[in-house]
C-alpha cells in the first residue's frame, strides 16, 4: 500500500514538473520578432544545411580532435627506452667493473661464483616487467 502511494506521488510530481516545463511552449506570442510570424522561406537550403549539418559536424570534429590530440603527442614523443642504443650506464656504486657496465668480476674468476651465489642467496628485492 505504501509502495503504491509513493508511486502515485512520484507520478503526480513528474506530471506537475512536465507541465511546468512545457507550459511556456503553449504561449501564443505574436509580435515582430515572434517565431510564429517568421516566413519559413527566409532560410535557404544552404543555410539550413550549414546550421543543421555543419554545426553538428563541427562540434563532432572538435570533440574528436580534443580526444585524439593527446594520443598523437604521446606517440610522437620518442621513448627513452626505445632510444637506448649503447652500453650500460651505471650511477652510484663503488666497483669499477660495475660502473663500466661489463661482466662483474665475481663471475669472471672461477671459484668466486660460489661466493657470489652465497651472497645472492641473502639478497632481497623484486623483479618486474613492463
Amino acid at each position, binding site marked *: 500500500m505504501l509502495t503504491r502511494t509513493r508511486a502515485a506521488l512520484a507520478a503526480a510530481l513528474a506530471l506537475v514538473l512536465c507541465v511546468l516545463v512545457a507550459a511556456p511552449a503553449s504561449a501564443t506570442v505574436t509580435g515582430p520578432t515572434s517565431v510564429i510570424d517568421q516566413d519559413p522561406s527566409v532560410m535557404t537550403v544552404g543555410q539550413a544545411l550549414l546550421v543543421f549539418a555543419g554545426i553538428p559536424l563541427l562540434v563532432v570534429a572538435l570533440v574528436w580532435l580534443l580526444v585524439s590530440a593527446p594520443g598523437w603527442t604521446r606517440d610522437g614523443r620518442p621513448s627513452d627506452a626505445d632510444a*637506448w642504443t649503447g652500453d650500460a650506464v651505471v650511477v652510484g656504486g663503488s666497483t669499477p667493473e660495475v660502473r663500466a*657496465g661489463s661482466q*662483474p668480476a665475481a663471475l669472471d674468476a672461477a671459484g668466486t661464483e660460489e661466493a657470489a651465489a652465497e651472497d645472492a642467496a641473502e*639478497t632481497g*628485492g*623484486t623483479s618486474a616487467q613492463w
Partner: protein
Amino acid sequence: MARVPSGDGLTDAQRARVARAVDSADAATGLSFVVRVGVLDGGRAEAEALVASEADPHGTVLVAVDPLAKRLEIVTGRRAAAVLDDRTCALASLTMTTSFVAGDLVGGVCRGLQVLTDHGRAVVHRHLDTL
C-alpha cells in the same frame, strides 16, 4: 657526487638527474644505491652478482633496468633488505614500471628511488629524555 661513466641512451641532464636521486637516497638511508640502465642478459642472477661485487654488498641496493628487454630488477643486500623489504621494493617497481610504460625512463627511476628513500629513511626519534 656519484661518478657517472660514459654511455649511450641518456643525456647529460638525465644522468645528472639520476645521480642527484642516487645521492639523495644514499644520504637519507645510509645505504649505497646503484642504478644501472642497460642490457642485463643474465637477468636476476647477473643483477645479484653485480651487488655481490660491490664494496659493501650487504648495504647495496641495485636498481637494474633493461630497456630493451623491458625488465626491472631491484636487488637489496642483506643489511639493505632489513631496511627495504620486498614489499617496498615491489611498490617501487610498480612506480617505476608505470612510468616506463609511458616512455619516461629517467622519471620512473627517480620516482622509484624516491619511494625507496621514503621507506628506508632513518627514523629520528626525538624524545624529551634523549635531549
